[in-house]
């Protein structure tokens, strides 16, 4: 398939891996920020091609994983209101809050629907004026423009039965939080190509400069990621710390102006709790004052304050790149996708689930 096959080519992948090998003189630890990239790395077995002294650690870029349990509890509670249609992207449905997931709520009678776009949720609200439609606005900057557009359209249609439960998180504050933690191992970042397609990479320039860390905007196919690694290693080996763009077919320095303007019109930056990581200042989006009527937390009440995790899950360490999933004692025995202790084992983009699904036999051996 065009635009896919040429980035999954075995010969091409081996060629880039050899180039990485040729320039690597010492051990380097590189973090890919995005869960989609983690998924590609583990699924296609990229690490088998890399030289042994390149270590990839997996970042916090799985929106499903970092959505706090308290917010999922709130979503479950709202969904169980008989007057509500609760709409969500599919992979949020299986994630447990402190007691239930949205799938379990559906089994208990909640009207929970999978949509492919927040605009489908707006359409639901127009079709069902007698019901309240709530959309779970989860994601990084990638999904923010479509969620902003949903609110914009709801205002234009004069809808009074549409709200969004906002769980938006931002990448640059999370990268700063990782770099500022005392035990940070990360020496270079692969930035998430989709996020940068929206936002560009201007925000990353001060990060690269201040923390002396190379940042390579990287795509999602195996050869994209290998090339991103090659560019990051080249910078590390030559002592440079710049922002470079591997994902040239999709990303420009200033991103998508229309999308950024729409986000800025509807949302503003605010504090946000990250599951497994904790509160990070200025790391999320919330609705601006003129759009608060579309805020589900205003209409249905705010979530209770975060419930601290009481099990042995080390999600916080995994999401900050301090541990790899197989290093967790519960991995694959007390924690599996069927009975997860934490979100990274649930989401299809979660690092623990990726290792469990694709690499379990290696971990065992």
């Amino acid at each position, binding site marked *: *398939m065009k635009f896919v096959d040429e980035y999954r*080519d075995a010969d091409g*992948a*081996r060629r880039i891996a050899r180039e990485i090998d040729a320039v690597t003189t010492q051990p380097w630890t590189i973090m890919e920020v995005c869960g989609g990239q983690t998924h590609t790395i583990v699924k296609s*077995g990229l690490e*088998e091609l890399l030289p042994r002294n390149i270590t990839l650690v997996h970042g916090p870029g799985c929106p499903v994983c970092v959505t706090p349990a308290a917010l999922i509890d709130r979503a479950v509670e709202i969904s169980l209101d008989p007057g509500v249609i609760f709409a969500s992207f599919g*992979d949020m449905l299986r994630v447990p809050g402190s007691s239930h997931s949205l799938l379990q709520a559906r089994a208990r009678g909640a009207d929970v629907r999978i949509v492919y776009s927040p605009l489908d949720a707006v359409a639901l609200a127009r079709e069902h004026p007698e019901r309240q439609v709530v959309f779970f606005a989860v994601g990084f900057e990638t*999904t923010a423009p479509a969620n902003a557009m949903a609110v914009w359209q709801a205002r234009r249609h004069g809808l009074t039965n549409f709200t969004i439960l906002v769980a938006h998180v931002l990448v640059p504050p999370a990268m700063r939080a990782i770099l500022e933690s005392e035990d940070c191992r990360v020496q270079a970042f692969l930035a998430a190509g989709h996020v940068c397609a929206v936002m560009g990479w201007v925000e990353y320039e001060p990060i690269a400069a201040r923390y002396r860390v190379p940042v390579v905007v990287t795509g999602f196919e*195996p050869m994209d990621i290998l090339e991103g690694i090659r560019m990051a290693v080249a910078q590390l080996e030559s002592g440079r710390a710049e922002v470079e763009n591997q994902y040239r077919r999709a990303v420009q320095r200033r991103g998508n102006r229309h999308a950024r303007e729409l986000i800025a019109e509807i949302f503003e930056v605010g504090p946000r709790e990250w599951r497994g990581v904790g509160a990070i200042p200025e790391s999320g989006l919330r609705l601006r004052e003129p759009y608060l009527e579309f805020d589900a937390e205003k209409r249905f009440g705010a979530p209770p304050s975060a419930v601290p995790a009481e099990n042995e899950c080390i999600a916080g360490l995994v999401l900050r790149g301090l541990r790899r999933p197989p290093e967790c004692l519960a991995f694959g025995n007390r924690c599996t*996708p069927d009975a997860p202790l934490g979100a990274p084992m649930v989401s299809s983009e979660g690092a623990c689930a990726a290792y469990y699904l694709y690499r379990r036999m290696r971990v065992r051996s």
Partner: protein
Amino acid sequence: MKLHCPFPAASEEHILLAHGGGGRLTQQLIDRVFRPAFANPLQQAEHDGAILPPASAHLAFTTDSYVVHPLVFPGGNIGDLAINGTVNDLAMCGARPLYLSAGFILEEGLLVKTLQVVVSAMSAAARRAGVAVVTGDTKVVERGKADGIFINTAGVGIVEAPSPVSPAAIASGDAVILSGDIGAHGVAILSVREGLEFEGEIASDTAPLWQEVRSLLDAGIELHCLRDLTRGGLATSLNEIAVARGAAIRIREVAIPVRESVQGACEILGLDPLYVANEGRFVAFVPERDVTRALAVLPRGVRIGTVHPDPAGLVLLESRIGATRMLDTLTGEQLPRIC
């Protein structure tokens, strides 16, 4: 898609609870809809069951229930599935499908016209597969207690494979042959269910598989195991077999055919075609020496892998870029991803 209905149009007539009550309306439904569609000499109107002729070999017997939504989808409807699914389960036992039962649970308010379309498809599928529907039953449940039509079919077939076809017969070194491209059925259903529009319609692959199995037997191929790739797709079927046999199955991703339209839809939806359901595809485990002849018989067949002794119970996939990973059983249902 065109559905030809040989029955008199019943305008906007709806199924009533009384259609399942056993009285006059039930009889009318049988006479108007079911009997003409499934007419065959073994159907005995005044009897509680069908009397089948004596068999000369082992019998295979299977049952399956069909609850698909929507009832009609590109490439078929629930009626096609209800015949082909059970026919294929028999074929996977190395058995020639012969007789089927059909049990219907209808929801009050269903259009009789819709039932006729479904029954008409069953009639055509049964003819194509060479099976007779020899007995049946109809119940009607209150509106809201079912989703239009639920169908159960059970089937009897006569085993024609000379040696047992089952995971236990698989030997180390056996080749894994896939009968054609995968993923079309699941994507066809999903595209209608979710109202997704793709360029070029993706039609279900629903089809009877006995002829393909029979032609493998005719070619003298030693069939060790057969499995149709329904719920959970290729990945799940291979895992079931690897566990049942206590062997490892190694397959190559590049060898697995996926039509571009199906691949594209899966890319957009964040689904893996290896886990998407098929209704007209199977894998065959055959000895290495039979591979060439097997591929000559199956026009769309491809060899995708080989059976190894270790690591027992696992399916390993060589990825496109040449690395090896596990191909696990699906956890829950595949859910579309956020981004």
